[in-house]
């Protein structure tokens, strides 16, 4: 019986994931997978063979009840802008879960080399996923702002990684039953997760989260192997392989090989790129002048970025869009594949304020349109419009496709300050003649802009 339910659950995972890749069926796909998960959990408890103490049932149901309430409330209450962090956080929880399973199962399986190696693999991957996700979460949350690098971190990390393999192998083959070695390995895996993610810049975080996501899938699959549990195995491997592919797809969208993301990291600016960091003069513009400019434009393209999300300006930007449309100005949004902190982040955010789906234009479609655009309004985006990605081979983001806003008649950039973006590099765009800077919090200045526009009638 339990195997039939596990089979059904596995099928719901596959179908659910398949449906998630199409906008029309996505929501039902998610619910389908959720239903399969509930069935699998109930079946695991209901069809367990053997005596189980009442205390254990109480603990299980207690943990599930508290976990459900906490998870549900967190997921429901979180602001849309914080979603990427939350995905990372939940991913870390799954990794930790896998790591704890390994800790408990270790001494139940002493003497069985296959089981021990599977347990250690699951525990190490789960731990790396957990601590890595926590760092990714802290980075997205702004708790850790800068990429922190210890000298020669690449060599150090690689040595540590090899060390984890060797140590794990030694624990397996030496058949030591010592808990001490288990905990040392656990601690080393946690440290590796931290050191693995720390040097990676914030702009690459989506890729890292996706990668850690597939790690957790792998950890779950090792658990499935250990128990001969089909649903864990299929679910875990499914996420592991789908997650890996998704990671590669994301890398492709940014035109950055995965290897560079993990090992290259964004340099601290090497000498040649620093020399081009000219400090030319910046033209500032106020909301009232900009209102006049926009009022007499035929076509305006808005380039949203993370700044829009941070300022929660998605509603006021919708208001701006409607106001301009009522004045006969053509308005659309140019969405870079990795705008914000995650692919699709801007789409989700703008959808929240009911921006029409067809107004969101993807990079390939919108790039030729900039030439016919009067004003490009860049709201809190930086690296995705940095011309250095096209012109400066020394730039760390060189090769990343960008929105070619420079071809428009004029560019207005809204930022809080002149500070560099997440990649930590200067943006020459801000110093160009056709560029004007509109400093301030996106929500605040856009609201001012809207009221100025209204006053123009």
């Amino acid at each position, binding site marked *: 019986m339990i195997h039939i339910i596990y089979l059904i659950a596995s099928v719901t995972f596959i179908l659910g994931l398949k449906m998630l890749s199409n906008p029309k069926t996505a929501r039902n796909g998610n619910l389908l997978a959720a239903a399969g998960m509930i069935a699998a959990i109930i079946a695991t408890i209901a069809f367990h063979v053997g005596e189980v103490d009442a205390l254990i049932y109480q603990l299980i149901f207690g943990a599930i009840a508290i976990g459900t309430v906490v998870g549900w409330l967190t997921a429901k209450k979180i602001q849309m802008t914080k*979603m990427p962090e939350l995905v990372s956080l939940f*991913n870390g929880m799954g990794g930790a879960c896998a790591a704890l399973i390994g800790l408990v199962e270790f001494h139940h399986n002493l003497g069985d080399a296959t089981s021990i190696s599977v347990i250690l693999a699951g525990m190490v991957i789960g731990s790396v996923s957990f601590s890595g996700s926590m760092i990714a979460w802290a980075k997205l949350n702004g708790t850790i702002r800068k990429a922190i690098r210890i000298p020669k971190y690449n060599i150090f990390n690689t040595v540590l990684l090899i060390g984890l393999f060797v140590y794990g192998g030694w624990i397996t083959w030496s058949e030591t039953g010592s808990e001490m070695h288990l905990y040392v390995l656990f601690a080393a895996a946690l440290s590796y997760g931290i050191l693995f993610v720390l040097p990676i810049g914030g702009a690459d975080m989506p890729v890292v989260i996706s990668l850690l996501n597939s790690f957790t899938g792998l950890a779950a699959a090792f658990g499935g192997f250990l128990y001969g549990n089909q649903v864990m195995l299929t679910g875990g491997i499914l996420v592991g392989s789908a997650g890996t592919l998704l990671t590669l797809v994301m890398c492709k969208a940014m035109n950055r090989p995965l290897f560079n993301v993990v090992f290259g990291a964004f340099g601290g600016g090497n000498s040649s790129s620093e020399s081009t960091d000219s400090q030319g003069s910046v033209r500032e513009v106020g909301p009232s002048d900009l209102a006049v400019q926009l009022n007499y434009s035929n076509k305006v393209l808005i380039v949203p970025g993370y700044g829009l999300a941070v300022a929660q300006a998605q509603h006021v930007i919708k208001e701006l869009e409607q106001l301009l449309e009522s004045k006969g100005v053509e308005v659309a949004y140019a969405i870079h594949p990795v705008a914000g902190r995650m692919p699709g982040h801007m789409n989700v955010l703008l959808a929240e304020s009911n921006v029409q789906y067809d107004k969101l234009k993807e990079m390939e479609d919108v790039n030729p349109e900039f030439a016919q655009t009067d004003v490009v309004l860049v709201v809190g985006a930086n690296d995705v419009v940095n011309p250095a990605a096209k012109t400066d081979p020394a730039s760390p983001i060189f090769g990343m496709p960008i929105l070619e806003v420079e071809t428009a008649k004029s560019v207005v950039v809204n930022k809080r300050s002149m500070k560099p973006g997440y990649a930590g590099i200067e943006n020459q765009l801000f110093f160009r003649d056709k560029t004007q800077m509109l400093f301030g919090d996106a929500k605040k200045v856009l609201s001012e802009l809207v009221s100025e526009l209204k006053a123009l009638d």
Partner: protein
Amino acid sequence: MNELIQFFTTNKEIIFSVTLMIFVGVEVIGKVPAVLHTPLMSGANAIHGVVIVGAIIVMLNSEADNYLALALGTIAVFLGTLNVVGGFVVTDRMLEMFKKKKN
């Protein structure tokens, strides 16, 4: 070599499903529009919450007086639940937004 073949024979069902699942995973993602990357990642995130099944098995197999195992197991079940429930609810919230724009 013999050991390898023996390993394969004893675990052949698992090895078959793992191999097939890898391809299923790749096929399922196929061509996904960039717009759906975040919800898809979030959905996959919820699915690997299936690791909670392992945590429950740990609990069910523990002795009632092994307090360390029970404590770790309970935490594992709690964290796994967070992963499952939070993961699916967050994904649903993201997708809810996509639906709204069609109206």
